[in-house]
Protein backbone atom coordinates (compact mmCIF):
# COMPACT_ATOMS: atom_id res chain seq x y z
CA UNK A 1 0.00 0.00 0.00
CA UNK A 2 1.25 3.47 -0.80
CA UNK A 3 1.89 6.17 1.80
CA UNK A 4 0.97 9.84 1.78
CA UNK A 5 2.94 12.16 -0.49
CA UNK A 6 5.09 14.79 1.17
CA UNK A 7 2.67 17.54 0.10
CA UNK A 8 -0.34 15.76 1.53
CA UNK A 9 1.54 14.94 4.69
CA UNK A 10 2.63 18.51 5.37
CA UNK A 11 -0.79 19.95 4.56
CA UNK A 12 -2.56 17.57 6.90
CA UNK A 13 0.02 18.13 9.61
CA UNK A 14 -0.46 21.89 9.35
CA UNK A 15 -4.23 21.44 9.47
CA UNK A 16 -4.04 19.27 12.57
CA UNK A 17 -1.66 21.64 14.30
CA UNK A 18 -4.02 24.54 13.71
CA UNK A 19 -7.01 22.67 15.12
CA UNK A 20 -5.13 21.30 18.08
CA UNK A 21 -3.54 24.49 19.34
CA UNK A 22 -4.40 24.86 22.97
CA UNK A 23 -4.29 28.57 23.68
CA UNK A 24 -4.03 27.99 27.40
CA UNK A 25 -0.72 26.23 26.84
CA UNK A 26 0.82 28.78 24.50
CA UNK A 27 3.24 30.26 26.98
CA UNK A 28 4.50 26.84 27.94
CA UNK A 29 4.77 25.77 24.32
CA UNK A 30 6.67 28.89 23.42
CA UNK A 31 9.07 28.35 26.27
CA UNK A 32 9.80 24.94 24.90
CA UNK A 33 9.89 25.99 21.27
CA UNK A 34 12.06 29.06 21.35
CA UNK A 35 15.41 29.76 22.84
CA UNK A 36 15.71 32.75 25.15
CA UNK A 37 14.93 35.51 24.93
CA UNK A 38 11.31 34.40 24.71
CA UNK A 39 9.14 36.81 22.81
CA UNK A 40 6.08 37.60 24.92
CA UNK A 41 2.72 37.42 23.21
CA UNK A 42 2.34 41.19 23.04
CA UNK A 43 5.68 42.29 21.69
CA UNK A 44 5.14 41.98 17.96
CA UNK A 45 5.70 45.63 17.26
CA UNK A 46 3.63 47.83 15.05
CA UNK A 47 5.27 48.20 11.68
CA UNK A 48 6.36 44.59 11.49
CA UNK A 49 4.94 42.35 8.83
CA UNK A 50 4.05 38.76 8.50
CA UNK A 51 5.21 36.97 5.39
CA UNK A 52 3.92 33.55 4.57
CA UNK A 53 4.38 30.87 1.96
CA UNK A 54 2.26 27.83 1.37
CA UNK A 55 4.99 25.24 1.50
CA UNK A 56 7.13 24.46 4.46
CA UNK A 57 8.21 21.61 6.62
CA UNK A 58 6.79 20.79 9.97
CA UNK A 59 9.62 21.48 12.35
CA UNK A 60 8.22 22.07 15.78
CA UNK A 61 9.95 25.38 16.44
CA UNK A 62 8.57 26.98 13.33
CA UNK A 63 5.10 25.58 13.84
CA UNK A 64 4.69 26.93 17.31
CA UNK A 65 5.98 30.33 16.32
CA UNK A 66 3.48 30.39 13.49
CA UNK A 67 0.60 29.65 15.80
CA UNK A 68 1.62 32.67 17.84
CA UNK A 69 1.63 34.88 14.79
CA UNK A 70 -1.64 33.56 13.44
CA UNK A 71 -3.19 33.99 16.85
CA UNK A 72 -2.24 37.62 16.89
CA UNK A 73 -4.14 38.08 13.64
CA UNK A 74 -1.40 40.25 12.23
CA UNK A 75 -2.20 39.15 8.73
CA UNK A 76 -5.71 40.45 9.03
CA UNK A 77 -4.39 43.86 10.01
CA UNK A 78 -2.49 44.25 6.77
CA UNK A 79 -4.01 46.58 4.17
CA UNK A 80 -6.07 44.84 1.51
CA UNK A 81 -3.83 43.49 -1.23
CA UNK A 82 -3.34 40.46 -3.41
CA UNK A 83 -0.54 39.38 -1.09
CA UNK A 84 -2.81 39.54 1.93
CA UNK A 85 -5.52 37.58 0.14
CA UNK A 86 -2.99 35.00 -0.91
CA UNK A 87 -1.63 34.66 2.62
CA UNK A 88 -5.08 34.30 4.11
CA UNK A 89 -6.05 31.72 1.55
CA UNK A 90 -2.95 29.58 1.73
CA UNK A 91 -1.51 30.24 5.15
CA UNK A 92 -4.36 30.61 7.54
CA UNK A 93 -6.17 27.34 6.89
CA UNK A 94 -3.01 25.31 6.72
CA UNK A 95 -0.92 27.10 9.32
CA UNK A 96 1.73 27.43 6.69
CA UNK A 97 5.18 28.84 6.94
CA UNK A 98 5.48 32.30 8.31
CA UNK A 99 8.15 34.59 9.57
CA UNK A 100 8.18 37.93 11.19
CA UNK A 101 10.52 40.54 9.74
CA UNK A 102 11.01 44.26 9.68
Amino acid at each position, binding site marked *: *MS*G*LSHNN*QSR*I*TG*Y*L*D*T*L*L*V*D*HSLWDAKLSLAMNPPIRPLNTIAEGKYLLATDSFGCGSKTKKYI*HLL*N*GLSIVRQLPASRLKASILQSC*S*PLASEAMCCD
Partner: protein
Amino acid sequence: MRIWSIANQKGGVGKTTSVVSLGGLLAERGARVLLIDLDPHGSLTSYFRYDPDSLETSLYDLFFNQRCKDLDFIHKVICPTSRKGVDLLPATTALATLERQVSGQDGMGLVLAKTLAQLWDDYDYALLDTPPILGVLLVNALAACQRLVIPTQTEHLALKGLERMVHTLKMVMSSQNRQLPYTIVPTLFDRRTHASMTTLKEMRQLYPDHVWQEAIPIDTKLRDASHEGLFPNEMDSLSRGVRAYRHLLAELDQGQEVKHERTIAQ
Protein backbone atom coordinates in the same frame (compact mmCIF):
# COMPACT_ATOMS: atom_id res chain seq x y z
CA MET B 1 -15.03 9.07 32.54
CA ARG B 2 -13.65 6.77 29.87
CA ILE B 3 -13.82 8.11 26.33
CA TRP B 4 -13.68 5.81 23.32
CA SER B 5 -13.84 6.94 19.69
CA ILE B 6 -15.28 4.57 17.12
CA ALA B 7 -13.74 5.69 13.84
CA ASN B 8 -12.67 4.66 10.37
CA GLN B 9 -12.06 6.79 7.29
CA LYS B 10 -14.39 4.57 5.32
CA GLY B 11 -18.15 4.47 5.54
CA GLY B 12 -20.36 1.43 6.03
CA VAL B 13 -17.98 -0.50 8.25
CA GLY B 14 -20.20 -0.70 11.33
CA LYS B 15 -19.27 2.39 13.35
CA THR B 16 -22.79 3.32 14.45
CA THR B 17 -23.72 -0.29 15.11
CA SER B 18 -20.61 -0.65 17.26
CA VAL B 19 -21.41 2.51 19.25
CA VAL B 20 -25.00 1.41 19.93
CA SER B 21 -24.03 -2.18 20.72
CA LEU B 22 -21.27 -1.23 23.14
CA GLY B 23 -23.44 1.49 24.71
CA GLY B 24 -26.28 -0.96 25.32
CA LEU B 25 -23.95 -3.51 26.89
CA LEU B 26 -22.38 -0.88 29.15
CA ALA B 27 -25.84 0.20 30.29
CA GLU B 28 -26.64 -3.44 31.05
CA ARG B 29 -23.86 -3.29 33.64
CA GLY B 30 -25.33 -0.15 35.15
CA ALA B 31 -22.83 2.29 33.65
CA ARG B 32 -23.88 5.83 32.81
CA VAL B 33 -23.20 6.28 29.11
CA LEU B 34 -23.14 9.25 26.77
CA LEU B 35 -23.30 8.50 23.04
CA ILE B 36 -22.07 11.34 20.84
CA ASP B 37 -22.96 11.70 17.18
CA LEU B 38 -20.26 13.59 15.28
CA ASP B 39 -21.43 12.54 11.83
CA PRO B 40 -23.42 15.12 9.84
CA HIS B 41 -25.39 12.21 8.38
CA GLY B 42 -26.81 11.78 11.87
CA SER B 43 -27.17 8.00 11.70
CA LEU B 44 -26.79 7.59 15.46
CA THR B 45 -29.25 10.42 16.07
CA SER B 46 -31.75 8.84 13.68
CA TYR B 47 -31.26 5.46 15.36
CA PHE B 48 -32.95 6.85 18.46
CA ARG B 49 -35.74 8.43 16.43
CA TYR B 50 -34.51 12.00 16.57
CA ASP B 51 -34.55 13.88 13.29
CA PRO B 52 -31.17 15.52 12.43
CA ASP B 53 -33.02 17.90 10.09
CA SER B 54 -35.41 19.28 12.67
CA LEU B 55 -33.59 19.26 16.02
CA GLU B 56 -33.19 22.79 17.38
CA THR B 57 -29.82 22.26 19.07
CA SER B 58 -27.02 19.77 18.64
CA LEU B 59 -23.29 19.26 18.91
CA TYR B 60 -22.98 21.95 16.25
CA ASP B 61 -23.96 24.71 18.70
CA LEU B 62 -21.12 23.84 21.07
CA PHE B 63 -18.57 25.10 18.54
CA PHE B 64 -19.67 28.70 18.90
CA ASN B 65 -19.66 31.35 21.62
CA GLN B 66 -17.79 29.20 24.14
CA ARG B 67 -20.91 27.09 24.70
CA CYS B 68 -18.70 24.03 25.16
CA LYS B 69 -17.91 25.44 28.60
CA ASP B 70 -21.54 26.20 29.51
CA LEU B 71 -22.78 23.16 31.42
CA ASP B 72 -26.40 24.35 31.47
CA PHE B 73 -26.40 24.69 27.70
CA ILE B 74 -24.71 21.31 27.22
CA HIS B 75 -27.40 19.66 29.34
CA LYS B 76 -30.05 21.26 27.16
CA VAL B 77 -28.52 19.72 24.06
CA ILE B 78 -28.32 16.18 25.47
CA CYS B 79 -31.33 13.92 24.76
CA PRO B 80 -32.47 10.73 26.48
CA THR B 81 -32.54 7.40 24.63
CA SER B 82 -34.90 4.47 24.98
CA ARG B 83 -32.73 3.13 27.79
CA LYS B 84 -32.31 4.72 31.19
CA GLY B 85 -28.71 5.63 31.84
CA VAL B 86 -27.85 6.14 28.18
CA ASP B 87 -28.02 9.66 26.76
CA LEU B 88 -27.32 11.08 23.34
CA LEU B 89 -25.52 14.22 22.26
CA PRO B 90 -27.15 14.46 18.84
CA ALA B 91 -26.02 15.66 15.43
CA THR B 92 -27.89 17.91 13.06
CA THR B 93 -27.28 18.26 9.37
CA ALA B 94 -25.82 21.72 10.06
CA LEU B 95 -22.67 19.89 11.16
CA ALA B 96 -21.88 19.50 7.47
CA THR B 97 -21.16 23.24 7.32
CA LEU B 98 -18.89 23.26 10.34
CA GLU B 99 -15.71 22.57 8.39
CA ARG B 100 -16.21 25.68 6.31
CA GLN B 101 -16.90 27.84 9.34
CA VAL B 102 -14.29 26.86 11.87
CA SER B 103 -11.51 24.79 10.33
CA GLY B 104 -9.08 27.69 9.97
CA GLN B 105 -9.45 28.72 13.60
CA ASP B 106 -6.92 27.73 16.19
CA GLY B 107 -8.03 25.26 18.82
CA MET B 108 -11.24 24.14 17.12
CA GLY B 109 -10.11 20.53 17.43
CA LEU B 110 -10.44 20.71 21.22
CA VAL B 111 -14.10 21.70 21.54
CA LEU B 112 -15.34 18.19 22.29
CA ALA B 113 -12.59 17.63 24.85
CA LYS B 114 -13.70 20.80 26.63
CA THR B 115 -17.33 19.70 26.49
CA LEU B 116 -16.52 16.32 28.00
CA ALA B 117 -14.49 17.98 30.73
CA GLN B 118 -17.70 19.70 31.80
CA LEU B 119 -19.51 16.34 31.89
CA TRP B 120 -16.71 14.42 33.56
CA ASP B 121 -18.66 13.42 36.68
CA ASP B 122 -21.99 12.84 34.92
CA TYR B 123 -21.03 9.76 32.89
CA ASP B 124 -18.85 6.69 33.23
CA TYR B 125 -18.34 6.28 29.47
CA ALA B 126 -18.56 8.46 26.38
CA LEU B 127 -18.69 6.69 23.01
CA LEU B 128 -18.05 8.84 19.95
CA ASP B 129 -19.53 7.99 16.54
CA THR B 130 -17.41 9.75 13.92
CA PRO B 131 -17.74 10.75 10.27
CA PRO B 132 -15.68 8.77 7.75
CA ILE B 133 -13.64 11.75 6.55
CA LEU B 134 -10.69 13.63 7.97
CA GLY B 135 -12.07 16.95 9.15
CA VAL B 136 -12.67 19.05 12.22
CA LEU B 137 -15.19 16.57 13.66
CA LEU B 138 -12.95 13.53 13.38
CA VAL B 139 -10.04 15.52 14.79
CA ASN B 140 -12.22 16.52 17.76
CA ALA B 141 -13.01 12.88 18.43
CA LEU B 142 -9.38 11.79 18.23
CA ALA B 143 -8.23 14.67 20.42
CA ALA B 144 -10.83 13.95 23.10
CA CYS B 145 -10.66 10.17 23.38
CA GLN B 146 -8.47 7.86 25.42
CA ARG B 147 -8.88 4.87 23.14
CA LEU B 148 -9.65 4.40 19.47
CA VAL B 149 -11.73 1.51 18.16
CA ILE B 150 -11.50 1.03 14.38
CA PRO B 151 -14.27 -1.18 13.00
CA THR B 152 -13.09 -2.51 9.66
CA GLN B 153 -15.22 -4.43 7.24
CA THR B 154 -13.59 -7.68 6.21
CA GLU B 155 -13.35 -6.87 2.52
CA HIS B 156 -10.37 -5.69 0.54
CA LEU B 157 -11.35 -2.05 -0.09
CA ALA B 158 -11.72 -1.48 3.65
CA LEU B 159 -7.99 -1.96 4.14
CA LYS B 160 -7.29 1.36 2.44
CA GLY B 161 -9.61 3.19 4.83
CA LEU B 162 -7.91 1.41 7.70
CA GLU B 163 -4.48 2.48 6.47
CA ARG B 164 -5.66 6.12 6.26
CA MET B 165 -7.19 5.96 9.71
CA VAL B 166 -4.03 4.64 11.33
CA HIS B 167 -1.96 7.26 9.53
CA THR B 168 -4.28 10.06 10.70
CA LEU B 169 -4.13 8.72 14.23
CA LYS B 170 -0.34 8.81 14.18
CA MET B 171 -0.34 12.41 12.99
CA VAL B 172 -2.79 13.46 15.71
CA MET B 173 -0.67 11.69 18.32
CA SER B 174 2.38 13.48 17.02
CA SER B 175 0.62 16.83 17.10
CA GLN B 176 -0.66 16.27 20.63
CA ASN B 177 2.53 14.58 21.77
CA ARG B 178 0.69 11.66 23.36
CA GLN B 179 0.05 8.00 22.72
CA LEU B 180 -3.42 6.68 21.99
CA PRO B 181 -4.04 2.92 22.04
CA TYR B 182 -6.14 1.54 19.21
CA THR B 183 -7.93 -1.69 18.48
CA ILE B 184 -8.91 -2.80 14.98
CA VAL B 185 -12.20 -4.68 15.05
CA PRO B 186 -13.01 -6.85 12.02
CA THR B 187 -16.70 -6.44 11.23
CA LEU B 188 -19.35 -7.83 8.89
CA PHE B 189 -17.38 -11.04 8.91
CA ASP B 190 -18.73 -13.99 6.95
CA ARG B 191 -16.52 -17.03 7.29
CA ARG B 192 -18.24 -18.63 4.28
CA THR B 193 -16.71 -16.09 1.89
CA HIS B 194 -13.19 -16.13 0.55
CA ALA B 195 -13.03 -12.32 0.68
CA SER B 196 -13.73 -12.20 4.41
CA MET B 197 -11.17 -14.86 5.21
CA THR B 198 -8.36 -13.41 3.09
CA THR B 199 -8.97 -9.84 4.25
CA LEU B 200 -8.95 -10.87 7.88
CA LYS B 201 -5.68 -12.69 7.34
CA GLU B 202 -4.16 -9.68 5.61
CA MET B 203 -5.38 -7.35 8.35
CA ARG B 204 -3.66 -9.47 10.97
CA GLN B 205 -0.45 -9.55 8.97
CA LEU B 206 -0.41 -5.78 8.52
CA TYR B 207 -1.35 -4.86 12.11
CA PRO B 208 -0.41 -7.90 14.19
CA ASP B 209 -0.50 -6.12 17.54
CA HIS B 210 -3.73 -4.24 17.06
CA VAL B 211 -6.30 -6.52 15.44
CA TRP B 212 -8.81 -7.98 17.86
CA GLN B 213 -8.49 -11.76 17.87
CA GLU B 214 -12.19 -12.28 17.18
CA ALA B 215 -14.56 -10.67 14.65
CA ILE B 216 -18.07 -9.23 14.60
CA PRO B 217 -20.12 -11.51 12.35
CA ILE B 218 -22.82 -10.47 9.94
CA ASP B 219 -25.99 -10.71 12.01
CA THR B 220 -29.44 -9.70 10.81
CA LYS B 221 -30.47 -9.19 14.45
CA LEU B 222 -28.29 -6.09 14.55
CA ARG B 223 -30.19 -4.69 11.59
CA ASP B 224 -33.51 -5.62 13.18
CA ALA B 225 -32.56 -3.74 16.36
CA SER B 226 -31.75 -0.67 14.28
CA HIS B 227 -35.14 -0.92 12.59
CA GLU B 228 -36.87 -0.99 15.96
CA GLY B 229 -34.68 1.73 17.48
CA LEU B 230 -33.61 -0.64 20.26
CA PHE B 231 -30.22 -1.53 21.63
CA PRO B 232 -29.20 -4.89 20.12
CA ASN B 233 -28.90 -6.53 23.54
CA GLU B 234 -32.48 -5.45 24.32
CA MET B 235 -33.63 -7.04 21.09
CA ASP B 236 -31.81 -10.34 21.50
CA SER B 237 -29.13 -10.60 24.16
CA LEU B 238 -27.90 -13.95 22.84
CA SER B 239 -27.60 -13.18 19.15
CA ARG B 240 -24.25 -13.84 17.50
CA GLY B 241 -23.58 -10.16 17.03
CA VAL B 242 -24.36 -9.22 20.62
CA ARG B 243 -22.23 -12.05 21.94
CA ALA B 244 -19.32 -10.87 19.82
CA TYR B 245 -19.72 -7.29 21.04
CA ARG B 246 -19.83 -8.57 24.60
CA HIS B 247 -16.46 -10.23 24.06
CA LEU B 248 -15.14 -7.05 22.49
CA LEU B 249 -16.27 -4.97 25.45
CA ALA B 250 -14.48 -7.31 27.83
CA GLU B 251 -11.33 -6.90 25.77
CA LEU B 252 -11.59 -3.11 25.60
CA ASP B 253 -12.29 -2.82 29.29
CA GLN B 254 -9.08 -4.65 30.12
CA GLY B 255 -7.00 -2.41 27.87
CA GLN B 256 -4.60 0.09 29.26
CA GLU B 257 -5.64 3.60 28.33
CA VAL B 258 -3.68 6.77 28.29
CA LYS B 259 -4.19 8.90 31.30
CA HIS B 260 -6.27 11.80 30.08
CA GLU B 261 -6.65 14.25 32.86
CA ARG B 262 -9.80 16.27 33.02
CA THR B 263 -7.69 19.33 33.55
CA ILE B 264 -5.98 18.88 30.19
CA ALA B 265 -9.31 18.97 28.43
CA GLN B 266 -10.35 22.06 30.34
